[in-house]
């Protein structure tokens, strides 16, 4: 079990996961990118920018 970089919740790395694979945190629903396999590290996946009238 590894920690989500956003909320600190536990995230399981799927068997046979590969670098750059995307997965969701089960607690905060953040989309995470696998940026390292040994050791396992995640980063928030990049998002498309949106302009809500800002």
């Amino acid at each position: 079990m590894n920690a989500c970089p956003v909320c600190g919740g536990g995230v399981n790395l799927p068997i046979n996961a590969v670098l750059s694979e995307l997965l969701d945190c089960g607690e905060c629903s953040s989309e995470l990118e696998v940026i390292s396999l040994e050791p396992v590290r995640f980063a928030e996946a990049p998002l498309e920018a949106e302009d809500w009238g800002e």
Partner: protein
Amino acid sequence: MIRASIVGASGYAGGELLRLLLAHPEIELAQVTSERLAGKSVGRAHPNLRGVTSLQFSSLESLEPCDVLFLCLPHGEAVERFEQFSSLAERIIDSSADFRLQSASLYAKYYGKEHPRPQELGEFVYGIPEIHRDKIRDARRVACGGCNATASILGLYPLYRENLVELDRTVIEVKVGSSEAGRRATSTSHHPERSGSVRAFAPTGHRHTAEIVQSLENGVPIEVHLTVTSVEMVRGAVATSHVFLNRDMSERDLWGVFRAAYRDEPFIRLIKERQGSYRYPDPKLLAGTNFCDVGFERDRDSSRVVVISAIDNLMKGSAGQAVQCMNLMLGLDETTGLSFPGLHPL
């Protein structure tokens, strides 16, 4: 089967209780009262229940003993008839504001009059299970929280519980739907006046402020500033609360605080996402459910944290909360009869 009755069942909250209790596997609905509609079928007031039940409204005078009595009367009426009600049922769950406050002086301050039965105030447990679960289990009298108060309290409780915020700087803006105003039509609820309106009907001094203070303060006085605005929806309340941290905390730290408070709560969901149409709690998705969705964001440039908490005012803010409390009082699974997950799209 457990026999339950509802006093004042022709209003919106009473109608929701009817809907929930008719489908509850452990409950036999004995009587439902309405003075105006006594002798008429329940479907007359609640068309969604036509064909679901053959129950007719009774008058208060014909009310018989039962196991659990729900009171859905306008504020001030439950306390006036309390002797009658307390003689009819061992367990009473009141949805009005009559017994929510533990302090007679706080009641007088916010309701503008002395409480008629101050000796009864301490007999009632405030009905938010996430805070008072053990007391509710043992209670014979429960006073359900107000809808705006419930949304606000559930949003802020984790931060106050851990003493993480400045105690004199809490500002809450609650946006509410028209069903909060009750069933009776007035000139202000007339469609041409109400439709499209964003109406600040209580910029200060809303009575639910007292419940919020009572629930959040922990031996030290706090200041809570509440504003309530009605917006263009029928059901729902969303509280946007602004608090200021008294220490440095990251968003991840805050996740830990909220998760610790609500991890095992069946009706609290932490909603905070970076993408999609519903990134933060939105009452639209909660119609008919007993959920309270809670989200938050820490301001990058200050110590401010914005907490967003949403409910269906007629469910978690009233009837659903009442049934959740009843389940606890009767030793039933807390979620019985409350599993509806909502609709999408709606």
